[in-house]
């Protein structure tokens, strides 16, 4: 985890780091700003030179702009031309204006004996890590999380506050006049660089494992049901629910407030639109939307 850090760097140093040319006078940059709200000695980016906030720039001194073309001479700022302003902006901010947050196990976190923690793992106040949990290097578990059961979390993962990874699963059969809980022997396996928003829950598998691939990003308030599999680099936005044993392929995009019925398959590269209720499998590369979800676009070719 990194945090913003007040530094001072010359625009020429930023240009050299990005291997781009600086147009206009060299200047000192203290940190990043939103394009519409520049302050003195800041760095902003715009995706289009026409979006340059000229009147705001006239009221500020020493602004560096990352944009697709050099800012014309006489403009009230200096610029670095790049085909990818946002990506280079992020790179420069990470290099010069953030610092790693020192890892810490908060004295009020509970780490059970037997848990295996990698290097630079942070577990913040109020979180619980059970005895059968393994956590990779540089992973951060924010406040008040519960990680329990047979869980393996990869390196550089982030679990935001109040999330539950593991714990009991919601899977019952009605027998002899009462709901009986199914056996719970599955594990949870989370790949490197996965990210979970606040108040998210991931259930362990009943008989099979719940598997979250590397690079998966899960927004706040998402539930991933028992035995589900989410492929590499997929995104699941806020408020979505994956019922039991759902399979999501790689590089899928699940929009906010999507519900996916148990055991359905969302194939690689597909998009599930806002609020969709998925009751049938989604083909590879398709875009589906609505209740019930229907295909509104198929991948060409």
């Amino acid at each position, binding site marked *: 985890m990194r945090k913003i*850090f*007040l*530094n*001072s*760097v*010359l625009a020429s*140093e930023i240009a050299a780091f990005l291997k781009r040319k600086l147009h206009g*006078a*060299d*200047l*000192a940059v203290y940190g990043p700003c939103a394009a519409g709200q520049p302050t*003195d000695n800041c760095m902003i980016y715009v995706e289009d030179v026409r979006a340059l906030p000229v009147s705001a720039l006239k009221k500020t*001194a020493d602004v560096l702009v990352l944009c697709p073309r050099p800012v014309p001479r006489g403009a009230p700022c200096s610029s670095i031309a790049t085909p990818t302003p946002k990506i280079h902006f992020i790179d420069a901010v990470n290099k*010069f204006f953030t*610092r790693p947050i020192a890892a810490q196990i908060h004295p009020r976190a509970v780490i059970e004996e037997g848990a295996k923690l990698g290097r630079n793992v942070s577990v913040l106040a109020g979180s619980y890590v059970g005895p059968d949990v393994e956590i990779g290097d540089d992973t951060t578990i924010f406040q008040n999380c519960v990680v329990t059961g047979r869980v393996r979390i990869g390196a550089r993962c982030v679990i935001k506050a109040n999330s539950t990874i593991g714990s009991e699963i919601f899977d019952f059969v009605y027998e002899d006049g009462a709901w009986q809980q199914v056996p719970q022997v599955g594990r949870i396996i989370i790949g490197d660089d996965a990210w979970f928003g606040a108040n998210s829950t991931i259930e362990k598998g009943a008989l099979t494992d719940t598997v979250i691939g590397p690079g998966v990003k899960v927004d706040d308030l998402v539930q991933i049901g028992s035995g589900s599999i989410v492929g590499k680099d997929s995104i699941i936005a806020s408020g979505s629910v994956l019922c039991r044993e759902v399979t999501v392929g790689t590089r899928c995009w699940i929009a906010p407030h999507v519900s996916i019925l148990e055991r359905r398959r969302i194939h690689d590269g597909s998009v599930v639109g806002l609020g969709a209720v998925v009751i049938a499998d989604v083909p590879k590369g398709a875009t589906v939307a609505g209740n019930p979800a229907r295909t509104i676009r198929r991948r060409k070719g």
Partner: protein
Amino acid sequence: MAGAKAAVFREKLTGYLRAQLSRLEAAHGRDSAEYRALALQYAKSPLEDRHAGRGERERHYESEVHIHYDGKPLRGVERLYRRTILIEPTTVCAAHCRWCLRGQYPLFSLSEDDIVRAARYCGSAPVRDDLREILITGGDPLMVPQRLEFIFTQLRAHAPNILIYRIGTRVPVQDPERVSKDLLGILRAAAPAKIEIGTQVNHPSELTPEARQAYAALYEVAFKIYDQTVLLKGVNDSVDVLSRLYDDFRYMGIEAHYLFHCIPMKGMAHHRTSVRRGLELMQDLTSSGAFSGRAKPMYTVMTDIGKVSLYHGVILERNEDDEVLLQTRYRVEDFKRRNPSWKAPASAQPDKDGTLRVWYPDGADDGPAEAAHEKR
């Protein structure tokens, strides 16, 4: 201590300084000594464009002090004294003090390669036998904490002979918010080397609660904070202001080190008093019984060959160009031994023992400290 763009030394203030000026104006008015004490330090004056002063210069001393290492010059490194080397990681400052010694230096920052070479030089034979401390100045090193951290890492790796990292900064009185936990963490990580902070406060009104808090925080990581006030016409050329200032330092644990006579930088004659005025003030401070002897600074001028502390008897004579000849204990052979490329400037002349005497341009007590129409 700041970078010029195309030889224009721009006016530059922080949001914090602007807020302080508004506060002082609201509390005391634009004509008050408190408001002017701050405004004169940072507001660009039309008087700066009148190149009237004699002997004014673009650099604060005219010696050749740059160093060659491995056949190439070391960027941003100067050596004038035996025990100490000076490194300037950046010329960026939070705000521009108008009389800045390095106001005419171009905007630049040292690259990581430059820093690695400088650290290697500091730890190389035979330099390492003499060098015990490094003065990290600029610019303001606390403006570039990331670079500062890199300097520390490199010095630790290549020059363990350096035991004291001395940092020159005005950040606590210009942008105290920058004295953050992150910055303190970086300074703390310099151990086992020790951190010493050299600062400059010129008027008690600069010591706001925020500035005091910043100095207190720096004292958690520094073994000493010392001050080098500059004697500035209209700001602190009175016994009352100086004694209040040094009382405050005493309370804050800041050592009063130098009271500098203002250097004859280009366009800055209006900030300068005469050398004699400073001597009178020093005598009032030190020889009147009105002031704690523990709080007395050394009154010093920066000449072409280095610093000379002034006492009665140090000034040998005065010429028709209003320069004063100062007796020093600097010796040509010492300079040559420390840095073979050193050349005596025209203002310095050795006496028959090889001890240097140096001509230093005097200032004037008459004449305004600001242009009539810019009265605030």
